[in-house]
């Protein structure tokens, strides 16, 4: 790991000023479970590291004014073990606890997982299905970006240099949801394919990870299911449509065709819970 200058600002303003002053050679450090490995491997080589964990109020998880807010530095274990989240959004809690090991989740954050923008990001599918919003802070002040617009490509988001994600939030909603992760080994592994299916009355929100360059919502399948009573026939048609809507690749974890097959199996198993 090459030498760098370390900053631990205590306010957002201070953090933004350092990022703007130091330019592209500055990296934001949050949980560090991804960045530190990349720095060790020489994939990232920042001259300046800006640790945002000391900024006050960034590790909040709170439900207020009808919204659930997850702060940028909230740990995956804190989110996964949060009793309100476990009770109201158990699929979100399950997704958080499916990532890495317990040791990793004591450092890694939900927001870091989103900002890395891996195609298989564990936190992406439940938050996409909850219609989450990403809160961004820059030298202009605050702005909101819908999570569905946030992901641009593999490891690319709309976030620009000099901006910090302060948290992510979603509207409180009465819904049912199923999170599924298929991996080669049950613990401490990346998803071969992951998904979340949320049901709110007769509306279905379906999101998948590791089947496209970014985590995706299956809009056509959702439109087909909207307002329909679930039946065996309807579920089969939805599964066929879902397979045609994804664009997986073959890699070390699975082949393209296996992933496509998983999409229909996972969707069928999820929808069948409500049929």
């Amino acid at each position, binding site marked *: *790991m*090459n*030498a*760098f*200058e*370390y900053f*631990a600002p205590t306010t957002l303003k201070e953090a933004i000023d350092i990022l703007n002053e130091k330019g592209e050679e500055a990296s934001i*450090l949050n949980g*560090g*479970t991804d960045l*530190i*490995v990349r*720095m*060790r491997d020489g994939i990232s080589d920042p001259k300046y*590291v800006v*640790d945002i*964990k000391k900024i006050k109020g960034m590790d909040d998880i709170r439900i207020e004014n009808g919204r659930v807010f997850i702060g940028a530095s909230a740990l995956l*274990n804190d989110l996964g073990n949060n009793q309100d989240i476990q009770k109201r959004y158990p699929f979100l809690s399950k997704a958080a606890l499916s990532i*890495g*090991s*317990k*040791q*990793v989740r*004591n*450092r890694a954050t939900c927001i870091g997982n989103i900002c890395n923008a891996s195609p298989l990001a564990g936190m992406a599918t439940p938050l996409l299905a909850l219609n989450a919003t990403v809160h961004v802070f820059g030298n202009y002040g605050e702005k909101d970006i819908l999570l569905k617009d946030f992901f641009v490509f593999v490891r690319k988001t709309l976030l620009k240099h000099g901006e910090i994600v302060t948290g992510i939030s979603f509207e409180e909603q009465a819904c049912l949801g199923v999170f599924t992760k298929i991996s080669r080994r*049950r*613990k*401490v592994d990346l998803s071969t394919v992951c998904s979340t299916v949320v049901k709110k009355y007769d509306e279905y929100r379906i999101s998948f990870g590791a089947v496209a360059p970014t985590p995706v919502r299956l809009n056509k399948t959702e439109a087909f299911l909207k307002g329909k009573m679930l039946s065996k026939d309807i579920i089969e048609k939805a599964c066929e449509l879902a397979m045609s809507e994804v664009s997986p690749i073959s890699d070390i974890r699975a082949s393209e065709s296996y992933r496509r097959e998983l999409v229909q199996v996972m969707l069928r198993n999820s929808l069948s819970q409500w049929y």
Partner: protein
Amino acid sequence: MKKVINFTLNGEVVEHAVDTNKTLLKMLREDFELTGAKEGCGAGECGACTVIMNEKAVNSCLVLAVEIEGASITTIEGLTLDGILDPLQESFIDNAALQCGYCTPGMIMTAKVLLNENPHPTEEEIKEGISGNLCRCTGYKKIVEAIEKVANDNEE
């Protein structure tokens, strides 16, 4: 490039000038000669570098030393007080829960936090608890048994 940090290491208050690009693991091993924590994968998959940071188990290879400002760190060396081994260390020896020993410090530190949080875990909870620690020789059966023994003693 060095930065002065203040933290508690195995119960002692420490002020130390550390290279910013050293991980907590590297600092413990090179600057403090605490070589119990090991580097296995260096990526958060094997758990051989597990130490306790503010009562939580963390991979010390995934923490920069400069990040521990104000924190309390306990390593395997800190479990032995005045030459008296921790019950977990005793139990790993008594139950032959180690062979090469590379994973042992990490395994014990993970188990230590597990038993602090849940003094009476089931076998399943122990397996789940140590799922972030890999062992490549003894196997997990004896390790789980060694932790179970300590948990059973907790019950008495």
